[in-house]
């Protein structure tokens, strides 16, 4: 097991290096960090531009620039934005914190609801409840996140304008200048983004849970358990649910990457200063190194969660062997 984990981690290092080198080459080739200066006639001074290009190693070859960037990542915490000359880490670490809060809440709610609904749908297969939930998850699955988010926004703006009741806020993270991570005010702000992200994951989890439950219910050992006279409640919760939960663990770990993608849209609609918002705003201004920083953090997160999914799967299901 330990050698397996070690090998996976060792393997992910070249993958990360290759991803970063390819993205770096692509991003550096197709955008000019000094474009803003060049466009402005006041700043368009050849000596200054030359100097800046030299300071930021823009006059070097790509592999050399990549090497400087890599050093920056490790020595200077992801380096400095070429556009604003500000260090990237303080900005992105705040964004990570906010995104984590939203994503984790959405994950927990979606998992609890999805598993519960999946279990009940499987036990009462083809009941009205099952059909209703199947339709809901089909809809949740087909709905683009941005559409759902906008509808929620429209709805709650409307409620506020009509009845002057603030149920949930529709933009920002906090009302005042102070930012408090766990307060009623913060929860009112992040409720709608969390709901948006929950719906998509819930659709996936409830379908998945239902399918694996049905698989397990029809297996031989469940028939044995019933045959020896165990009460149905015990059969379902001790024998069926426990085994049906195993694939959900993997799926929910893999869903993290999708949630990070969903966060891009959700955060830019609700204007939350999270990772997705960070990415989109930096992408719009061609802030090369900030985009690179985001890409690397997402890549590392996805790789970690993929690894976690595999390890947990092996831990929960002893039939899986690693070699």
């Amino acid at each position, binding site marked *: 097991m330990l050698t397996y984990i070690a090998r996976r981690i060792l393997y992910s290092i070249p993958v990360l290096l290759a991803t970063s080198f390819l993205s770096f080459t692509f991003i550096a080739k197709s955008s000019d960090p000094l474009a803003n200066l060049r466009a402005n006639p006041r700043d368009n001074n050849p000596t200054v531009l030359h100097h800046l290009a030299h300071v930021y190693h823009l006059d070097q070859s790509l592999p050399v620039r990549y090497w400087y960037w890599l050093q920056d990542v490790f020595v200077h915490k992801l380096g400095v934005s070429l556009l604003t000359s500000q260090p990237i880490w303080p900005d992105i670490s705040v964004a990570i914190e906010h995104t984590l809060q939203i994503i984790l809440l959405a994950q927990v709610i979606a998992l609890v609801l999805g598993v519960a609904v999946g279990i009940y749908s499987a036990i009462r297969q083809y009941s009205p409840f099952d059909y209703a939930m199947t339709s809901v998850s089909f809809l949740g699955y087909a709905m683009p996140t941005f559409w759902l988010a906008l509808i929620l926004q429209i709805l709650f703006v409307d409620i506020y304008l009509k009845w002057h009741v603030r149920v949930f806020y529709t933009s920002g993270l906090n009302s005042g200048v102070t930012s408090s991570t766990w307060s009623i005010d913060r929860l009112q702000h992040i409720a709608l983004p969390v709901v948006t992200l929950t719906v998509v994951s819930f659709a996936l989890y409830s379908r998945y849970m239902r399918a694996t439950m049905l698989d397990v219910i029809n297996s031989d050992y469940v028939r044995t358990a019933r045959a020896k006279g165990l009460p149905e409640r015990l059969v379902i919760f001790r024998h069926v649910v426990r085994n049906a939960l195993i694939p959900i663990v993997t799926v929910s770990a893999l869903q993290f990457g999708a949630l990070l993608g969903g966060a891009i849209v959700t955060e830019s609609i609700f204007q939350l200063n999270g990772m997705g918002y960070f990415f989109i705003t930096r992408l*719009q201004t061609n802030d090369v190194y900030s985009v690179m920083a985001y890409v690397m953090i997402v890549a590392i997160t996805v790789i970690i969660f993929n690894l976690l999914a595999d390890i947990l799967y092996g831990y929960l299901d002893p039939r899986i062997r690693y070699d």
Partner: protein
Amino acid sequence: MTEPTTPLDVRASVVVDPMAIAVPLDLAAAEGMELKTRSQWSYARRRFLRHRLAMIGLVGLIIIFGAGALATWVSPYSFDQIDLTYVLHSPTTVGHHIFGTDEIGRDSLSRIIYGIRTSEQVGLTVAVVSTLFGLIVGAIAGYYRGWLDNVIMRITDLILTLPLLVVLLTVAALLGRSSSVWTIVFIIAAFYWTGVARIVRGVFLSLREKEYVEAAKAVGAGDLRIMFRHILPNTLGPVVVTATLAVADAIILESFLSFLGFGIADPTPSLGKLVAEGQQFPQKWWITVIPGLVLVLIVICVNFVGDGLRDALDPQQRRVRA
């Protein structure tokens, strides 16, 4: 004396397929009825045509995509025609603005129909291009294995380290903001084909060890013949399903790109862009809600058709939608 066997019996024994709908063959033979031989494909077609949801989805898709394809004739206005007497008007029958108008008085229904045309172009082209490419590459990788297999698997590993949306956004943003429909198609297809390649490769890897492939080799069939004549038909089930679902995926990805402002450039309407336009007017619900609803309908219909095709083409597999 020879056993009197009717040709009917012989044929019947060939036809029997445990997976097919049970046809009372003996009964038919006893009554001397003419039996029609059915190929695997005709069984699949029957299963598909009897799938209720798939038929609903198919009809829905024909209506929606038909309107999009005939946009020039179907839509009451052109997508950029301005009617200044109706600016930001709610849905009304007056002047045929049944879905209302936008902030400069353009008819929403017409813009949605033209938006469907865009989605349709993106969805269908991406599906066809990435499926064909993925099919060829996956077949070669799965059949020959070796370095090509390694390279392809490593490339897909790399792409899978990032959410597809992040990759597409970065590429679309850096290739310039004024993308045409075909640029977006190219960008999506360039990253989407790896999924198809992985699936085809998996099937080829397992089928290349089968006895019938060995038999084909023994009678001297060439590699190309084995790949395309013997193995390929067996991969078509999963491939057709993947290609169908790719249509929905591509449409959704395009709408995400367009919504975030990195998609197809103005003035071409796109459903994602139409939804985004409503963002400035939270009071004018129809601008946001209706184009999004059309997107949802398209995706649901495609999913229904995909499910029906899967049930028809490869009945053993019960896929959980991921």
